[in-house]
């Protein structure tokens, strides 16, 4: 199983309520995925010329990490801790900051990179994970999230979603892929992609990353995925400007969408949307199989 949710706020007046609207959506999907949870949040963009990377390293001294990063990269690195994670920002390239984090001792596990995106994920019940990261207090334009019931690989934080798929892009997945072993090998051996886990969804994320590196738009990358990814899936993909949704052509995995003048939302089941403001007046529909849906700032 697994549950996925996404919320994009069209009305700027709601943006300081993003986390408080989103948290109950993810909690409602607990029965679909009680073993781990994660979320991607798009709050604000880093100042021009700076990059933003989210890292995970339980028990690390974040103050010392910031001092070491600034010294070794030769430029001030700000570190904003959030439980087991922290957001690093600096006026360097994203690759430089990522490489520095992963090469450290102890290494910091990079969960996201870009200029806007932050990704937080942990093992545990969704309500506990949301509380730990202070999600109800978060503001921003949009969030996507995932509750996991592991089927293809171990219950680990690394196996939790969302997966970062290139700068400011991330993926959550409900379903299972059947050609991910060969596809992972091919992406790693022939295209130079790096993978952190044995997870099938990480391969889908890597596949989209590779397509985007080839110059595809996110919609084109997803449409190519209809041919190249074998298995069951409903995907939600977060971008800097919004999010996209795709269901495989057989469409065994559920999805429902709703839209009002103020927001657009998707979830595995309607009950996750049932407490959004003015939901009774929303247009509610089931996304068609094999069709890419996208929202966000035009």
């Amino acid at each position, binding site marked *: 199983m697994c549950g996925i949710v996404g919320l994009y706020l069209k009305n700027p007046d709601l943006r300081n309520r993003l986390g408080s609207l989103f948290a109950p959506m993810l909690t409602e999907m607990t029965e679909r995925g009680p073993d781990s949870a994660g979320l991607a949040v798009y709050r604000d963009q880093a100042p021009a010329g700076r990059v933003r990377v989210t890292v995970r390293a339980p028990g690390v001294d974040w103050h010392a990490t910031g001092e070491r990063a600034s010294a070794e990269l030769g430029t001030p690195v700000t570190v904003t801790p959030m439980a087991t994670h922290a957001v690093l920002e600096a006026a360097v390239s994203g690759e430089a900051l990522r490489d520095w984090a992963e090469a450290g001792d102890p290494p910091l596990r990079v969960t996201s990179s870009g200029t806007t995106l932050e990704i937080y994920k942990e093992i545990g019940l969704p309500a506990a994970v949301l509380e730990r990261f202070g999600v109800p207090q978060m503001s921003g334009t949009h969030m996507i999230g995932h509750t996991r019931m592991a089927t293809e690989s171990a219950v680990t934080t690394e196996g939790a979603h969302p997966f970062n798929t290139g700068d400011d892009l991330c993926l959550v997945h409900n379903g299972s892929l059947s050609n991910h072993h060969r596809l992972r090998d091919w992406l790693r051996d022939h295209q130079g992609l790096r993978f952190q886990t044995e997870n099938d969804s990480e391969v889908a994320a890597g596949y989209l990353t590779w397509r985007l590196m080839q110059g595809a738009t996110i919609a084109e990358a997803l449409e190519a995925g209809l041919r190249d990814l074998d298995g069951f899936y409903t995907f939600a993909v977060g971008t800097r400007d919004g999010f996209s949704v795709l269901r495989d052509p057989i469409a065994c995995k559920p999805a429902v969408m709703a839209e009002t003048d103020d927001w657009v939302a998707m979830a595995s*089941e309607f*009950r996750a949307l049932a407490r959004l403001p003015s939901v009774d007046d929303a247009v509610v*529909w089931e996304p068609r*199989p094999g069709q890419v849906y996208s929202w966000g700032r035009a």
Partner: protein
Amino acid sequence: MSTREEIDLDAVPVRRLNRLLQGRDGTRQAGSFDVRNPRGRHALAAGLVDPIDVVIHGHAGYYCAGMNQQARVTVAGNAGTGVAENMMSGEVRVHGDASQSAGAAAWGGLLTIGGDASARCGISMKGIEIVVGGSVGHMTGFMAQAGCLVVCGDAGAAFGDSLYEAELYVLGKVESLGADCVEKDMDDRHVARIEDLLGRAGFAADAGAFRRYGSARQLYHFRIDNAAAY
């Protein structure tokens, strides 16, 4: 004089609602019930056995009115996966859209869907009558054994795949027919059947303009000539 009772699911758990509607205290249940704040919860009004009237005011989750006998259940909203699955008798009416597998494996009764039904509507149906005001998704009528399905809109791919003896009627376009499903001639009996079902569903459409689909009866038995295909 009939009674009308209101149940607020923000105050009462689904299990208590269903025990009440099922008459689990040993008495036969009667009267009418209004269910408020369904909020997409699962298994609402499942397993009813008495001829009661239930209106769900809002969207229902999975398996709403499953296994229904005799009761008349109305969803004034959309219904999730498997609405009226395994219904035996009675009537289930969805004002909005229904998700996949509507009326799955149901033996009897009438299921009416005002909007669209998504994939696998009427999968393995065994005698239920289904009338859809809008369109149906792919694999509708998969392995349908008996009963009747009337679609006032279009039908998605692989319509009627591996069909047995259910009768399927479509007013609009059929994207593609599934294995062993063929178009068949319409005669007066078929038009009368559609008219009857449209009338009971409360939908207006030209019964004579529907097309009929049924089984070519080529997949019923194992044929030695096909052995190489397995």
